[in-house]
């Protein structure tokens, strides 16, 4: 009940963010139930029905393989959630841990944060490009590469926030009461970082979609057959005048979802501890 109440207070009076939240809920539902809702197999090829206009039974038309775009869009929601969550988990687990440990154990931090500095100097997209060429095109690798790209910024942010908390009275109190390092880090410090982390996660989720689409466009993202919105755009982009619906639907889906995620993140940012506000990047 408390969670519901706090969500209410975060989104109170923010009409746009509320709409965004509703849209994201739709995306999540589509992702979960896509096999049940999708009228066609998203991989089913039909040479006779290629490039058909939107209508019945192909709500979003068909692509140049004759695959049903609506079904692919539904499965694309699944990829959106998978890539977003995957990138968030990779970034928070690796970057977050490095950042927290570095701030807590100063000596270790000296070494680790230097490493983070080195990685920060690599331009994000270039690093992703090189890594993707090095690995193979797959869903897993795309998630890892995008996650790693955002791990560095996450490490920086968590480093800063943990450092601020370390000097707080309640941490000193915990130390005095004989708590171990793990207990201080994860039971006393981490809980205070949950809401700023959520904000950071929402921005990573949003950016990951755009990064994934950019990689797809450059031919270095998900395997081209995988139904994702980025793939639908980049695989069919030559049909922009011949079959405009192939670019309009997935394009609108990406924009709406990224926009919604940004709105939600923005609303949450305004409600977190003011000490941490400046630490979090994003739009």
């Amino acid at each position, binding site marked *: 009940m408390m969670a519901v109440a706090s969500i209410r207070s975060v989104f109170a009076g923010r009409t746009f963010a509320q709409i965004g939240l509703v849209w994201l809920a739709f995306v999540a539902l589509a992702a979960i139930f896509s096999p049940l809702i999708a009228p066609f197999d998203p991989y089913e090829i039909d040479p006779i029905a290629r490039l058909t206009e939107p209508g019945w039974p192909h709500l979003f038309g068909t692509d140049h393989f004759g695959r049903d775009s609506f079904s692919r869009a539904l499965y694309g929601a699944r990829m959106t959630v998978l890539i977003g969550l995957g990138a968030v988990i990779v970034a928070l687990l690796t970057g977050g841990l490095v950042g927290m440990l570095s701030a807590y154990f100063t000596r270790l931090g000296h070494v680790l944060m230097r490493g983070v500095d080195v990685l920060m100097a690599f331009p994000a997209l270039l690093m992703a490009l090189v890594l993707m*060429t090095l690995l193979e095109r797959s869903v897993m690798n795309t998630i890892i590469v995008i996650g790693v790209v955002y791990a560095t910024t996450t490490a920086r942010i968590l480093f800063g926030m943990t450092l601020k908390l370390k000097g707080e009275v309640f941490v000193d109190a915990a130390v005095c009461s004989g708590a171990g390092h793990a207990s201080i880090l994860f039971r006393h410090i981490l809980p205070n970082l949950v809401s700023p982390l959520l904000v950071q996660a929402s921005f990573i989720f949003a950016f990951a979609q755009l990064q994934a689409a950019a990689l797809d466009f450059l031919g270095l993202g998900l395997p081209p057959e995988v139904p994702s919105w980025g793939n639908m755009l980049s695989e069919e982009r030559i049909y922009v005048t011949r079959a405009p619906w192939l670019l309009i639907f997935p394009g609108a889906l990406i924009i709406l979802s990224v926009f919604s995620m*940004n709105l939600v993140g923005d609303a949450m940012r305004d409600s977190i501890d003011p000490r941490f506000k400046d630490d979090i990047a994003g739009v």
Partner: protein
Amino acid sequence: MLFYTIKRLLALIPTLLAATMLVFLFVHLIPGDPASILLGDTATPEEVAALTRELGLDEPLWTQYLIWLGNVLQGDLGTSVFFGTPVLTVIADGAETSILLATMTMVWIVLFGVPIGIVSAMNKGRWIDQITSGGAMLFASIPTFWLGLYLILLFAVGLGWLPSSGFPSLTDTGGVTNLRYLILPSLTLAAPNAALIIRLVRASMLDVSREDHVRTARAKGLRPSRVAIRHIFRNALISVTAAFGFTFAALVSEAVVTETVFSLPGIGRLVVQSILRRDYPVIQGVILVIVVLYMFINLLVDLAYARLDPRISLK
């Protein structure tokens, strides 16, 4: 201040060294080899092996690295496997486009971003604030290649106002007027990046307006708009400068997609093409140059910061 600068410069060395090692390792782990790509379909394995030897690609990795590093320290980034010309020349050719593109993008960002940021801070919480912040965020949510595609269709193919793609150098026929080739790409690139600046300008104006000297100015009875422009903006500039620095560095490298869509001969497209061609020296060179650029901008921003706000260098 001088001591601080030297200290910061020295600190760059190990970071740079680690970065070069990483670049070298990554690039050489990529499967595929330049020799067989250069020689094409009909080359025999012996011929490929011979060219590989000639290119020095058969040495152990760490030997190759040391040789490369030694050359880099003497200002020689090596020779492009594909073009056969010095990497530095290839990069310099691309740099013209990239720097002009980033600069023009910056101009749009400042032209649109700063006034919008100020207006939205002055109207905090009102509808105009909501519309501008929301609009900026919407632009930041559009995939760049999608936006670029439609801009080309509308302004180049449909209306015929602007060229669709390519960029003849400023020294080419047409001279400065060739900048018109960069209008659409720079707008495409500015769209997502303006949002960050708008938010920053807005946030720093709000922060600064809470500070004491602004309150004093208000108390003295100065008109609110004067207070806003003179005091708030000048101080807000400090933190915004920093953001500009980073944005500029990011623009040079994040332009990969834009340069591909608009077929611009910049550094971003050079990297993508070089990866496809496995032109190791060029990939290494470009990434190295961008990393160095990024670090120096980082440093300059910090130094500018320290100068504008003396409290920092005391830390």
